């Protein structure tokens, strides 16, 4: 290693324990840390994949290419990349200055605290996740060799198109079902290898030959939100490896889901703390200025979108101030620790985005009117409600599987739970084609267009739509 690089590593090796000490004094609680300094391509690879050990897919290549191009053209930089895992892996960009990396390290410590303590992350298996994904990636490579890259790739394309349609509350539901019925499907994962043993078994993973009470069956008493699960359990003609792909991608989504639901809180939390940690470090004047510039860049507000770093930071600071004022010094800090444990973005915004904040920060809603993008709403409640709504279900439309035997012909009937936002028609028609390739029989989707109920279908050859 060359001298300046070695010097930088030594500086970091000295700075990081100091920051960790400061963080601990602030009562932050994180997993053991693993920092890795690596070149841009690597960080952008991980950024595109979400995880260093994820399986191979061309879409990641597309994201990687786009991120790297933007980085090469100096349009944007990923500063930090941290993984919800135990030990917690954090990646520092090789070209960063020492101050930048110090700030990233501080920021990342707070992220790790968030991952460890926020309730929504409790089932994400941080100790095994990296290994699990690596093992899955290896299995996928094996499938590619046996069945051909094209076939596997197209199948993954199809599964990814509905990947986000899982039911994050499944653990609650399963417990309810298991409560009244005794029987085989009560088996919980007893060892970390249970999911491997299950691969040998078809369908639901138990021996009851499909008589499991917890399996919903083709005519679910309650429409099933977890489309991937529904397809796993009811689709005909899926091969063993296809089962595995669906199952793995579904597990992946469960892992990423909490991150998608707590973006504003998490970034706000990390920004709040990197500020305070860096303030406690003995920075020289030059370093302080550089840090201030970096921080300003990170929280820069945007006219066309909400900057989660900025909004989250302001909200935490506002909460701390208000609680300190009302309940005395120190109450604010206590409150924000509590929030970081129990809230997600929806509850965070609903409870703590106040009228004053909306007005102080000048938040608004805009839309396209004719040829112009215009501000259309400044009423604080409307702005807040819109933000809360857009985060429900992590911003994805809710699609339910209502019937797996529609028309008594084994067709799949999906229904979009329409509230006030219409679906993109072109996309949904193409997605139905993907769903068909998973279900292997005609598929239908009911939704509302222009206030009329519409039924879109795909029968394997062409799509159709009709208004009901």
């Amino acid at each position, binding site marked *: 290693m060359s001298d300046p690089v070695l010097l930088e590593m030594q500086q970091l090796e000295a700075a990081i324990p100091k920051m960790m000490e400061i963080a*601990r004094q602030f009562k932050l609680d994180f997993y053991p840390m693993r920092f890795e300094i690596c070149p841009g391509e690597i960080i952008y690879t991980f950024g595109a994949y979400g995880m260093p050990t994820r399986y191979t897919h061309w879409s990641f290549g597309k994201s990687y290419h786009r991120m790297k191009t933007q980085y090469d053209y100096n349009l944007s930089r990923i500063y930090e990349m941290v993984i919800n895992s135990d030990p917690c892996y954090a990646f520092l960009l090789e070209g960063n200055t020492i101050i930048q990396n110090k700030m990233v390290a501080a920021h990342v410590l707070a992220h790790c605290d968030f991952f460890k303590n926020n309730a929504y992350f409790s089932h994400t298996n941080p100790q095994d996740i990296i290994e699990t994904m690596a093992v899955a990636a290896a299995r996928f490579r094996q499938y590619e060799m046996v069945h051909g890259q094209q076939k596997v790739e197209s199948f993954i394309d199809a599964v990814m198109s509905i990947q986000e349609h899982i039911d994050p509350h499944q653990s609650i539901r399963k417990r309810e079902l298991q409560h009244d019925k005794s029987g085989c499907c009560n088996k919980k994962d007893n060892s970390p290898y249970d999911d491997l043993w299950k691969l040998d078994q078809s369908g639901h993973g138990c021996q009851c030959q499909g008589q499991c009470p917890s399996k919903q069956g083709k005519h679910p008493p309650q429409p099933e939100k977890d489309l991937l699960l529904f397809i796993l359990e009811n689709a005909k003609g899926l091969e063993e490896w296809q089962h595995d792909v669906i199952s793995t991608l579904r597990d992946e989504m469960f892992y990423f889901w909490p991150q998608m639901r707590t973006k504003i809180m998490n970034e706000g939390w990390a920004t709040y703390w990197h500020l305070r940690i860096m303030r406690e470090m003995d920075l020289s004047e030059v370093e302080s200025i550089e840090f201030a510039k970096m921080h300003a860049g990170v929280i820069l507000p945007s006219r066309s979108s909400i900057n989660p770093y900025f909004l989250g930071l302001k909200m935490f600071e506002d909460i701390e101030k208000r609680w300190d004022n009302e309940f005395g010094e120190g109450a604010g800090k206590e409150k924000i620790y509590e929030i970081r444990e129990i809230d997600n973005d929806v509850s965070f915004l609903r409870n703590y985005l106040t009228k004053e904040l909306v007005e102080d920060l000048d938040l608004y809603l805009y839309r396209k009117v004719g040829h112009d993008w215009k501000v259309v709403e400044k009423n604080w409640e409307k702005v807040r409600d819109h933000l809360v709504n857009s985060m429900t279900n992590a911003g994805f439309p809710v699609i339910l599987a209502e019937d797996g035997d529609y028309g008594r012909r084994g067709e799949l009937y999906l229904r979009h739970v329409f509230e006030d936002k219409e679906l993109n028609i072109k996309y949904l028609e193409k997605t139905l084609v993907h769903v068909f390739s998973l279900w292997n029989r005609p598929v239908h989707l009911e939704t509302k267009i222009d206030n009329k109920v519409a039924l879109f279908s795909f029968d394997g050859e062409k799509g159709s739509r009709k208004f009901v």
Partner: protein
Amino acid sequence: MNYNFVITREDWSLHRKGEVDQHRHKEKVREAIKQNLADIVSEESIILSDGRRVVKVPIRSLEQYRFSYDSRKQKHAGQGDGKSKVGDVLGSDPQQAPGKGPGAGEEPGQDYYEADVTIDEIEQIVFEDLSLPNLEEKKNKKLASETVEFRDVRKYGIQSNVDRKRTILEVLKRNALNGNPGIHGITPEDLRYKTWEIVPKFESSAVVLAMMDTSGSMGPFEKYIARSFFFWMVRFLRTKYENVEIVFLAHHTEAKEVTEEEFFTKGESGGTRCSSVYQLALDLINTRYPKDDYNIYAFHFSDGDNLTSDNEKCIRLIDQLLVKCSLVGYGEIEGPYYYTSTLNSFYKRITHSRFVSVSIRDKNGVYPALKSFFKNSDQKGGVSS
């Protein structure tokens, strides 16, 4: 306190994951281009690229579809500088392009994915199926010149052609094998000579006689079709010949030579007499572009609405052109009106193997037209699309 942390810096130089998938993505882009060649060949960003190497090509098949909201109909949240009011305009977008608004990055919806490809990459794909027909005729000795190329190294030759470097290498080899390394004692067996071969070099010049009907009925769309066609035609010929010239001949009832700019933009009015431009082409060949020195490719674009009395003369002139040219082609751009007897139907009488006539209805017709013009010589000619 003992803090459990580690900082490492591994050697990532062999880490190819991103690169590998990016390669796969590039492959997919390539496949997508191949499947959509008809669209891409006439894509404006390429034809009007003015020589830029990298162009953005919209590829509609690489989108990742999912059930998602129609973002164009929705509201979005943003943050202002403190003084925003209802009715403030954030940005304006007169072209109705989907999703363009203030600022880049997290914008509501781009409907398609744009791939960055170099024109060379597209060329490769487009030209895969094209070939230069009638190549046998070019082996005519008169058209080929001979050149001398030093390609070979032998053990015998003229003293003045000794390849010193190779000779010394042989000496070193031999001495090392004998256990006596070093440069000493050059024997005759070590000598190496550079030798030449006589290589026939085929003619290196081509000229494209681009002829276009610029009467009133040829509007901007028709001109664009012609432009797309000539764009690829010239590029293709440039891969086969060292030197490609283009001559632009525009005509209505009379023909004249024009600049490229005028060829593609100026419109005239008035009637159409196609024979005028064929005559002009012949004249140019006789004066400026002798057949012995140039490979001539003549292509005429029109909407087919020729003066009926002129048609016979056109055929006669085309026959004359066919004597001199490697390829003569006629492209008819079908307009919205259906003409009962267009030039195209007339030209069906010409059965010469070096004559191709095509009919193009829309942008997607350009690529098939290119293919039939530059087809392999064992296929039939005269295709309409």
